Structures are given as C-alpha cells and as structure tokens.
C-alpha cells in the first residue's frame, strides 16, 4: 500500500496541530460557532444528535493492520468502544468529545491517517473496488490511480470551495463493485479496440433528493490525461455549478441541465487548456505509484493447496455455507478473497467493536499479508488468504461473530446510522435493519431468496443508498412520526438502476413485514430459482409486489 512521504507526514501533522489551536480558541470563546463550524467540518467533525461525530478517511478502503489497531485504540480510548464503517469505505466514531479530537487527529497522523476532506464542499475520499488487485475480472488495478487522485485532490486550492461535495469512484474490473454510476465522477478502467487501457469517464451521477445515473461523457481517456481531464471537469463544475441553492448544487444537476453532450463539450474545451501541462502523468510517475501496490509475495501453491477439501465442505455445513457466500475466487491459484460480514444480529450494520478490530488486525497479519479492505456494502475483506487456511480462519471469525454467511443476501443490509445518531435523519435505520434481519433467521430461507440487496437510508440524503437497493427503504417524517417509503428495483452494479416507490409510506412497525411480503411474493412469481429478485421485478414490474404489500385495489 502507499507509504507517506515527508510531504504527507508534514501535511497531516500540521493539520492536527492547527486544529488543536482552533479547538482551543473555540472553547475559550475566541472563535464563534459560525466561524468554527467550517473548520471542524474540514476535519470531518460533525455535530450529530447526541454528540460530535468524527469521520476518518480510509483512502479507497485500504487499511494496514497497524492502522486498524489504531482505529481500535481510538474507539476504546476516546469513544464508546466501537466504530461504524460507511458506504464510502470510511469509519465514523459517534461519541468523541470536542476536547479529544485534536489528540485523535494526532494519533491518526502517526499511522498515516486523517479526517481531511471527509466533509465539506470539496473532493471527498476516493472509493474503489474492495477486490482491487486480486479480482479475476480485473483489467488493471485501480488503486495507483486512486492514490494519484487522492494526492491531486488533497488540499487542491482551486477545489477547496466547490458548489457542493464531490465524490469520485474508480474501478478496474468488469463487474462494478464501486457503484460508479452514482458518483459525481465514476471512472472505469477499460481496454479499447487497440488493446490499450484507459478510463471510461462517467459524470453527474448521485443519489440524494435527485437520484441520477451518471452518463458517460468520454468512453476512453488515455491514462496520462487522467488528472488534466479531471481538472477540466472540476473547473467546469466550479465555474458553472449552482451556488444559489444547496439542493441544486451537485454536478449532476448541472450535467442534467445542459445535457451530457453539451457538458462534455464544455469539458473538452476546458481540457485544451489543461491537457498539455504538468498534470500529464508520465509513465514513470504511474510506475512509481504502481510500485506501492505490487502483489504480496504469494506462494507458488501446488494443486493440493488450491482447493477447499471437498470432504471438509460436505462434513461442515457452517463452513461450506461461509465458503459459498463469503469467499470469492482469487486471481492467484491457491488464494481466496474473504469477506468478513459486519451484518450479524448483534450489531448495527457496519459496526465493529474495538476488540473485533484488534482481532481482525491480528488475523490480517496471520492470514492476509497484514491488509484489510473496507467495502461499499459496509463489510470488511481479507484479500489474500491461502485456500488451505480457510478452515482455520473460519473458526477464528466464528469466535469473533464475523463469519455470518450472509454476504449478498437479504440480511447483508446497508444502513446509515439514521435517527439513532444523525442530525439530518427523519427516521431510524438501524432498528429497521434489525427488524428485517429478525424475520430472516433461517439460512435455508435466506439462501432460497438468492442474491438481493436491501439498502436503508434514514433521510433523503441517501447515505444508505436506498435508491440502488433491490429493496430500498427511505425514512421520512410525517408530523413527527417515523414513516418509510419502500422502493423496489434499484441496483448499483453494471446495469445500475434507480428504485421506484411502491406505494404509500409505511410505519416503523409495518416496514419489515412489508419486506417479508415482497420477498414471499417473489418466491411465488419467479420463473425459477435462477431468476433473481431484481430480474423478476424487472420482468413483472411493481404490480404483484404492490398487491402483496398493500392488498388488491
């Protein structure tokens, strides 16, 4: 992974020192709250319902075991013993005292971490494929480009005060596991007819109150032009994006207003100014960055070590279920990608305790070259586990309650913190996720439903990506009472789509039974077990599911 150089170290250390002074002045009365708020937001510090919330950046979801141990220490020392992994692959602490935040930032800086640009109208943490570098369907590892973008965008003076926040996702694989269609900029490494690898550039996607799938404005961009082209996009947005209305200020509104074709023309025109500049990435610079992401020292494993023993799979049902749902094929024979489910019935989705973080860090050292990935779907990943180590790893994860064999199933729920924590939320999300999970405790039933995504947001800001859940749930406020809209048909994968509202909003007690009825109807109307819920919905439309939830008209 990338190692900080002297510039990086100076930058995060000085930022921590600077914030210490700002906090001190705030508490002494030297700075008013209106003046302090933008300063704390630039350091990822929000005021939520019950406490401050600190969002720590995990660039493209990649962590070392040392960093994870430090996150555990922070959870234990300064918070309430747990953290929450988000859909942007970051971690949030829900209870830090303002007086402790400078110390937290200093502790983060020691392990090459920070909370810079995790809030505010700037370029946020770049997200990526959690299987980057190890996926079998990968064209090229996206992480070197993510790191290049991270360095370019960190403290970029021209883009420190954009009309609104700005999110970039990069994938290098055929299957989109980074939800690039719903980002301000979505980049996909592709191969052109000449066999060269470059970027497909999509711009103007997003969720929130105006969900839009990003159109492609350039099917192929040479890698050397990555930064100059991104700079051109940001300049067009920065100059013409709306600043008069917060709800119309994202780039998606601008792209939609002028049309993707016209927007592309504006970018191309601007690009002529940035194209031939110091922003051009030469091969040496790309190679320098790629050197940080070379494959770990894999063993040359023999045939006997490349497969999970069939006897073990048939003998141990719990293990075989886990292999089936949580283990993914690796590009190197004898290795596997392992998802650690953070979706047990014991915790809110994405939450992990300090003890679990420490234990995961130890397991990463023993089984996966000391690296951990965080995922868009709020799970963790060990990217490089020897297949022959899977039984031992499984036993250890079971003991940690991190082996729920439910990845990609109805209980692998994305959920924002919702009204239990969030100042913006209208309704609780965590309790809805729990209520749904409680209705699907039989793994046979869960597996019978096949792959299905359930995404829950406590408000229209859509941190839980409800629009792209096969089943999406949106919390709304009706005269002070929590209600929920049920949406069906969303997807964030290659055939991304936005879910449609099924009918009238439901109460907190009604929403989980409604999800159960939708899936029961799916089992009745699907063509075969091979037809996934999403495909079934796309074939039949909303009518049978609407009838299942609301009854016949």
């Amino acid at each position, binding site marked *: 992974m990338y190692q900080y150089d002297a510039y990086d170290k100076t930058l995060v250390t000085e930022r921590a020192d600077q914030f210490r002074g700002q906090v001190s002045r*705030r*508490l*002494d*009365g030297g700075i*008013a*709250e209106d003046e302090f708020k933008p300063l704390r937001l630039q350091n990822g510090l929000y*005021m*939520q*319902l*019950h*406490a*401050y919330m600190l969002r720590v950046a995990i660039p493209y979801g990649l962590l070392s075991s040392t960093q994870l141990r430090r996150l555990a220490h922070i959870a*234990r*020392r*300064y*918070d*309430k*013993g*747990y953290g929450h992994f988000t859909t942007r692959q970051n971690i949030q602490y829900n*209870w*830090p*005292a*303002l*007086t*402790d935040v400078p110390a937290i930032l200093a502790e983060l800086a020691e392990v090459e971490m920070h909370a810079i640009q995790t809030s505010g109208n700037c370029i946020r943490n770049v997200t990526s494929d959690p299987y980057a570098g190890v996926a079998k369907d990968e064209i090229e590892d996206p992480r070197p480009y993510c790191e290049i973008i991270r360095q370019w965008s960190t403290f970029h003076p021209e883009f420190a005060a954009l009309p609104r926040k700005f999110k970039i996702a990069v994938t290098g694989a055929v299957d989109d596991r980074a939800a690039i269609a719903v980002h301000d900029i979505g980049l996909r490494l592709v191969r052109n007819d000449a066999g060269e690898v470059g970027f497909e550039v999509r711009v103007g996607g997003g969720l929130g109150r105006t969900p839009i799938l990003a159109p492609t404005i350039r099917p192929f961009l040479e890698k050397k032009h990555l930064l100059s082209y991104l700079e051109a996009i940001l300049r067009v947005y920065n100059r013409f994006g709306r600043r008069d209305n917060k709800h119309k200020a994202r780039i998606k509104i601008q792209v939609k207003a002028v049309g993707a074709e016209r927007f592309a023309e504006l970018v191309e025109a601007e690009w002529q100014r940035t194209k031939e500049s110091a922003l051009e990435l030469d091969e040496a610079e790309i190679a320098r960055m790629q050197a940080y992401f070379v494959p770990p020292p894999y063993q040359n494993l023999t045939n006997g070590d490349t497969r999970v023993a069939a006897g073990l799979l048939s003998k141990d049902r719990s293990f075989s279920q886990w292999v089936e749902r949580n283990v993914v094929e690796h590009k190197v024979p004898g290795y596997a990608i392992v998802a650690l489910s953070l979706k047990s*019935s*014991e*915790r*809110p989705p994405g939450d992990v305790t300090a003890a679990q973080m420490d234990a995961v860090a130890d397991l990463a050292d023993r089984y996966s070259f000391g690296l951990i990935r965080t995922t868009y779907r709020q799970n963790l990943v060990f990217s490089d586990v020897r297949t022959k180590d899977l039984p031992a790893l499984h036993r250890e994860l079971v003991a940690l309650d991190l082996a729920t064999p439910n990845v990609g199933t109805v209980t692998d729920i994305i959920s924002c913190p919702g*009204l*239990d*924590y969030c100042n913006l*939320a*209208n*309704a*609780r999300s*965590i*309790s809805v996720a*729990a209520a749904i999970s409680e209705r699907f405790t039989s793994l046979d039933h869960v597996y019978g439903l096949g792959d299905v995504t359930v995404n829950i947001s406590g408000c229209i800001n859509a941190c839980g990506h409800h629009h792209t859940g096969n089943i999406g749930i949106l919390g709304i*406020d009706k005269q*002070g*009472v*929590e209600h929920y809209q049920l949406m069906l048909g969303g997807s964030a994968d290659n055939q991304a789509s936005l879910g449609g509202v099924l009918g009238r909003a439901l109460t907190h007690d009604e929403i989980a039974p409604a999800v159960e009825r939708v899936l029961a109807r799916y089992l009745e109307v699907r063509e075969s077990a091979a037809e996934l819920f999403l495909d079934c919905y796309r074939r039949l439309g909303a009518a049978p599911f609407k009838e299942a939830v609301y009854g016949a008209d």
Partner: protein
Amino acid sequence: MGFGMPKHSETQTVLTANRTEDGSVVYLGVDRRWTRDLQEGCRLKADDQEAVLDWAKTQEREVCDPYVIDVVVDDGRLSPRTARERIRAEGPDATLARLGYAVSPVAPAALSRAAQG
C-alpha cells in the same frame, strides 16, 4: 424573561441545545442552568420563547444551536412530541440495547476526566 409554568396550556415548550465541549444534549433548566435531564427542563411561556432563545444564542461557549421543542406533559412528566426529540432525550440506547450493546457506556477518557473532576 420568565421560566414559570404556563397555566391552562396544552402545548408546552422547552429550550434545548448541544453542549459545546462534548456535543451532549442539554435543556435549559431553572436559573438558566443547562441540564442533561429533560425532566429538569423549564417549560417556557409562549411570550418568553423568543427572548430566552436570543439569550441562549449568546451562550455559545457553553452550548451550540439552541432551539425550542414541543413537549407533552403527562402526569407531570415531559415527553417530546417528535421521534427525533424522543431519541435525543433518551439516546440511541433502546435500539442499541436490543442489539446487545452495553447502554450508556461512557468513553474511558471521559470517565477519567470525570474522576479527576
């Protein structure tokens, strides 16, 4: 400016904010002291709300973003009218306890500070 109990009123209001130092939820109590306990919150007279709120806004070294909330009084006990304010008053404990968390845990650093006074 008065903090007395309004007579014959169905709608009651209380002033709330978040404490600057740690973000915790507080309510304006008697003698203009901030309290963590909603039950100790002073019920505001309608005529006084604006003046009390203006005063609270001058207290930003101690609290942030003060505002007035509606509460229902039942047998002398105050209950917020909205789900949001109920959760602010009670914390996320109901949800978290159900999921097995120890409720109302206090961060070790905060405990240490409290012990040191």
